[in-house]
């Protein structure tokens, strides 16, 4: 089991100051995620889901505890090394897609590859493959404003996978989509995990999306809630 461990959080804490008060969205959190796992994170707003996701993605730094990914303590990396690490290891899928509006679908997907030394031909090959994989190759020359929400999210997924990262993090990837587009996007994410063996950590509010994950964890007030306690809470709520 431990040989397959990819993400390891121990006593992971994140706090920041806002005015006079200190906010602690994550408090001494312990979490293990194996390679190839599909983990859904659920919980109410402000429970620390996105903060945890951002820490795992290396776009935020913990204020306490340890965060090891692939055996490397990423909290100890400098800003620039962390950027390089993200470029090599992480694909990030946003709720609102966050495509660069003045770039076409192709150019958006190409962006992460521009950080890597490779020929234009290789780049073209990888971008084309990624676009085909997400089923949007025929829209490669469209700008984001010319695409539907579901199509934009497909482009964003292609951008996240084009560098072949070990971890894909998704922050409410279907949060802004209609039901049928949401199903299509979840099918795609499930395929990434099952067919390409990607490790997927997804934040969602949607129980149907969480059902597609192999494992679902609930957060509340910056801590993981045990399944038993969650059952009690759900019972009380009912």
């Amino acid at each position, binding site marked *: 089991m431990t040989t397959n461990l990819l993400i390891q959080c121990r006593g992971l804490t994140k706090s920041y100051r806002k005015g006079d008060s200190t906010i602690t969205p994550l408090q001494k959190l312990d979490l293990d995620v194996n390679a190839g796992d599909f983990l859904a994170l659920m919980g109410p707003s402000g429970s620390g889901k996105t903060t945890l996701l951002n820490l795992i993605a290396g776009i935020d730094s913990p204020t306490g505890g340890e965060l090891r990914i692939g055996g490397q303590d990423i909290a100890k990396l400098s800003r620039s090394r962390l950027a390089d690490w993200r470029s090599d290891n992480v694909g*990030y899928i946003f709720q609102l897609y966050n495509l660069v509006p003045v770039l076409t679908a192709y150019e958006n997907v190409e962006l992460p590859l*521009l950080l890597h030394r490779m020929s234009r031909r290789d780049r073209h090959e990888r971008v084309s493959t990624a676009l085909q994989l997400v089923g949007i190759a025929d829209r490669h020359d469209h700008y984001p404003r010319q695409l539907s929400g579901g199509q934009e999210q497909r482009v964003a997924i292609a951008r996240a996978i084009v560098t072949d990262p070990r971890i894909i993090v998704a922050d409410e990837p279907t949060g802004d989509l209609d039901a049928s587009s949401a199903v299509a996007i979840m099918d795609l994410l499930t395929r990434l995990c099952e067919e390409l063996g990607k490790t997927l950590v997804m934040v969602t509010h949607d129980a149907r999306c969480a059902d597609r994950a192999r494992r679902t964890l609930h957060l509340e007030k910056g801590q993981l809630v045990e399944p038993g306690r969650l059952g009690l809470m759900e019972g009380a709520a009912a």
Partner: protein
Amino acid sequence: MIALRLIPTVLRQVIRHRTRTILTAAGVAVAMFLFITVQSLQHGVRQATEVTAGDTTLIVYRENRFCPATSRLPESYAPRIARLPGVASVTPMKVVVNNCRASLDVVTFRGVPADDVAPMAAKWRILAGSLEDWHKRSDSALIGQRMAERRRLTPGMSFDAAGVTVSVAGIIASDEPQDQNVAYVHLPFLQQATASGAGLGVVTQFNVRVDDPAKLRDTAAAIDELFRTDQDPTTTRPEKAFVAQVGADVVEIVGFARYLGWGCLAAVLALVANAIVLGVQDRVKEHAVLQTLGFRGGLIARMIIAEGIVLGVLGGVAGTAFAAAFLAWGRFSLSTEGLSIHVSPDVGTSLVGLAIAAGVGVVAGLVPAVQAGRREIAQSFRAV
């Protein structure tokens, strides 16, 4: 600065933010147009007034006179000057202008003896007509290229200015600034044609060539000493120093205009900086996304600066080209007291303008670029 493969992305940002780019580049272009024009004026002043090591021409003028209308010297001074050691040649010259004040369209007649034209013509290029035609008629004129273009004169035409009517015998081009904006006519003709000219035997000045540039100052002193006790004492100066003295007012005004040029640059700086600051503020989230993808803060900063450079250079090229075309088309000469300062574009000024435009792009982009590069990703996402 940034990897070549990232340059297309920078260019796309510039090209596809079309409105911002057009407005910013247009502003830069207007400012650069003014800057280049002012710099060209400065360049013209330097060319006309800065004495260089190779200069061999002295101007002998009536002492304490600063206008061709009041400087009157006996033509008979010429052989006396020619006898002084170091003097290679002496050309008595009558100068008549249609306007003694500073103007962009002054017609200057220079009356010279027919025998003195041949050595002067050695440094001219005859663009139209011929020297022979000039010798054939007593009222013929050889017109400097700039004046000919400004007044649209061609050989065979006659024109009138300052009460003098001449027939155009040829168009000449010369590297000497003072040859480009004059009409060379026969000295006796001009002496008789002007009522205020005091008639035959009186000239405005002598153009003296020395055989060694090193002797310029000594020869000038010797000439003034020769006529110190005469009825018409002289003041002799190197030609360019003479221009600087006579055109002092214009030189001073042009010197002041330099500050306007620098003001234009400051306006460019503010304009580009404003465009970049607004662009960066608009794209906080986009930069956060780039950082999420693995772009380092420093790389994003350099990409923003590169955008500033492209904007600056785009506007700089447009403004410089427009200024060059405008100055070439207008053939402007700022003349005073019969002396001309040409406003012409030169490659050096244009290159300096472009370099400054690019530099302004760097400076303008520096602060917003550093701010964008240092911003925390999560903080940026929270901020929008």
